[in-house]
């Protein structure tokens, strides 16, 4: 017997590379829910872009057809008016919802971006730095802010801003304020996840091999803490549209005698759309889903037999809920895909 002599050099197998998107797709195609959600989001984007092109000259103003304003015989959905007509506004509801799409997508995208940016980073840093100064500050401030219901804090801060500088306050300021108010909920869930991750053996190993705090944060903690963000994101949409719709609804419906009118003006026998003083919208004929929903609920049920005037509140409601469901489906799909990778 001869000794075994290695005649060929032994090559170690190459390290496994991350699968490309195409390989992942081939191994496990995305779920039906993800595809439906992505399709809905694409539809919203196309609608918004087309509105930017079609209504580019009057994007912030709904046209008012005087013949449609009085509610004597409100026009329901038909071939000429797909979503019917909203009396009071005096506008075709299909056009109003279409024209509002770019504004609302912008509002939601802006608020949720700020929410993710602050909540994700602060929560992950706090979780990794458990018991430290940053963790203490983030938890203390976050818990304190979160002890006030979101919609009340948003409106209070906005009303205060309006008192100081009514001219400077606008939709972008509302977006920033709301984004800052939303972060504690996000940060709390992310912190819980990051805290668990920080105790994992591979973090210990990274620390022992000399990895710095920012490196551990960016390489290990942040990518593994995406789950809570995806779960929280669709829920964070709810308070935005609650504020945008509930206060116009209350203002138009519930004040005794309807919204206040200037002195010496004759009373009208229909609801004129009006905005509460702290509303972020620039004018009372601004296209925005929440405002349309609030006013439409009020207007629809101000007629006897409000269920017969369903289109006034159903279509803005569908636009809002559809966007939330689309975001929820996409988030759930991404989460399932991420879990499959691991």
């Amino acid at each position, binding site marked *: 017997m001869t000794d075994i002599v290695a005649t060929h050099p032994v090559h170690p197998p190459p390290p496994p590379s991350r699968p490309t998107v195409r390989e992942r797709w081939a191994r496990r195609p995305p779920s039906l829910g993800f595809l439906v959600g992505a399709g809905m989001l694409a539809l919203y984007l196309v609608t918004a872009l087309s509105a930017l092109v079609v209504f580019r000259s009057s994007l912030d103003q709904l046209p008012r057809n005087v013949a449609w304003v009085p509610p004597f015989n409100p026009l329901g959905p038909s071939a000429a008016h797909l979503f019917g007509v909203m009396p009071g506004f005096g506008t075709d509801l299909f056009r109003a919802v279409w024209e509002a799409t770019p504004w609302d997508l912008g509002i939601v995208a802006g608020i949720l971006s700020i929410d993710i940016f602050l909540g994700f980073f602060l929560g992950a840093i706090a979780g990794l730095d458990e*018991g430290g100064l940053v963790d203490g500050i983030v938890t203390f401030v976050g818990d304190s802010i979160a002890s006030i219901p979101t919609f009340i804090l948003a409106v*209070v801060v906005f009303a205060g801003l309006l*008192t100081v500088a009514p001219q400077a306050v606008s939709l972008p300021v509302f977006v920033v304020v709301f984004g800052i108010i939303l972060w504690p909920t996000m940060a709390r869930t992310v912190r819980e996840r990051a805290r668990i991750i920080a105790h994992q053996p591979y973090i210990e190993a990274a620390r022992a091999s000399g990895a710095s705090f920012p490196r551990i944060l960016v390489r290990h903690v942040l990518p593994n803490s995406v789950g809570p963000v995806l779960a929280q994101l669709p829920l964070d949409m709810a308070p935005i549209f609650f504020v945008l719709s*509930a206060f116009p*609804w209350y203002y138009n419906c519930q004040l005794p005698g309807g919204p206040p009118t200037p002195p010496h003006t004759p009373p009208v026998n229909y609801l004129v759309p009006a905005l509460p003083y702290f509303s972020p919208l620039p004018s009372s004929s601004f296209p925005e889903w929440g405002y349309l929903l609030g006013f439409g609920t009020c207007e629809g049920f101000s007629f006897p037999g409000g269920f017969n005037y369903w289109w006034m509140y159903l279509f803005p409601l569908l636009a809002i*809920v559809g966007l939330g469901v689309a975001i929820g489906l996409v988030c759930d799909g991404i989460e399932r895909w991420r879990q499959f990778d691991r």
Partner: protein
Amino acid sequence: MTTSPEEAPLSSGPLAEISPPAAEPSLHGPPPPLLSGLARFALQRLLLIPAQLVLVILILYLAIDVPVALTRTPPVSLAGIDQGFYQLVFNLFTGNWGTSSFLRFFNGGGGAPNPAEPIPWTQIFAYYIPTSIQLALFALPIAAVLAYPISLYAGWSRRPGFDAPARLVTLTGALLPVFVVGTLVLNALFAGYLGYLQDVPSQGLLPADFWFFDRGGYPPWILYGFATQPTGLPLVDAVIHQAWTIAFISLTKTLIQASVIGIAYVAIFFRHARSIARSVREEVYIVGARSRGISERTLLWRHAARAVAPSFLLVFALTIPEYLGVQFAVEVAFVDPGFGYLIFASLTGGVLSPLVPLVFLMSIVVLVWALLVDLIAIRLDPRGLAGR
């Protein structure tokens, strides 16, 4: 918040048993703590609440008081408006919450306004709060009874036929503004309510105005603004005065509102709680019990239902502000003179002066409530204390 490494093992963990007795001080370590882990945690949290409240006041001060002071616009009766931040903190903690100009409404009903005698906000809050308490006493059990089994079952079930639709339905429910649901429910009930009970569902917890006028005016125990005597809770007061019809109408209205709150709250609770039930499904003792032939039903409703209780309670503590938001919106939708109605009315009417004490009061409720729920959760499962 956290204990130092030296004293951590003594308060909880295996070293607590072998630590030296308190009678003879040891040379090898600090003496054992005076308080147990739970008591120390409760004390820490309790001491933290005033600090958190001061931060809340600071936010409100910057958001409302400073702008109003800068522009010198009315209303000027804001608590501590001209006295600075420290005075505002002092006023709020000592119950000096400013005065109201709601004179016409509260001066005994029909009496002429008397500007010389402004009413303290505390007195007005005392009118509004009992209605909200009565509603919460009904809504909280309904919300818990609905949310607990639905979240547990959806997380537990392996069939995609239940989980996926449940997720979709609850997400839709969370996105539906509560006032729309409330308006739909009110209008659906209106005809039947008017026919059988001769009342309208949209006028608060007590029977409608015309009902009282038809029967010779308000009874003497119902004050202006629907505040009742002696307890303030409409249902209890009606029972005390043996006004059974009023009690029945108040009860049905409260139940309807509480059901709407419960359904809306399930949607919020579900998304947080589902994953907890999912993780329990894979626990070793559940798998072991299943291998011994215990039926899925027993596993779910006996073992898992008990195991998720502490975590569900923590979710409950986390979502208290959301719950309050839902209840306030329902109060507004049903025109029920409660705390939420007062907040909406003052915000929309442009009266900023009650907002600081209102939000301060609400923060106290939220923080104390969260602490109580946390303590119950830790009592059920002391392991949670180690991670704090």
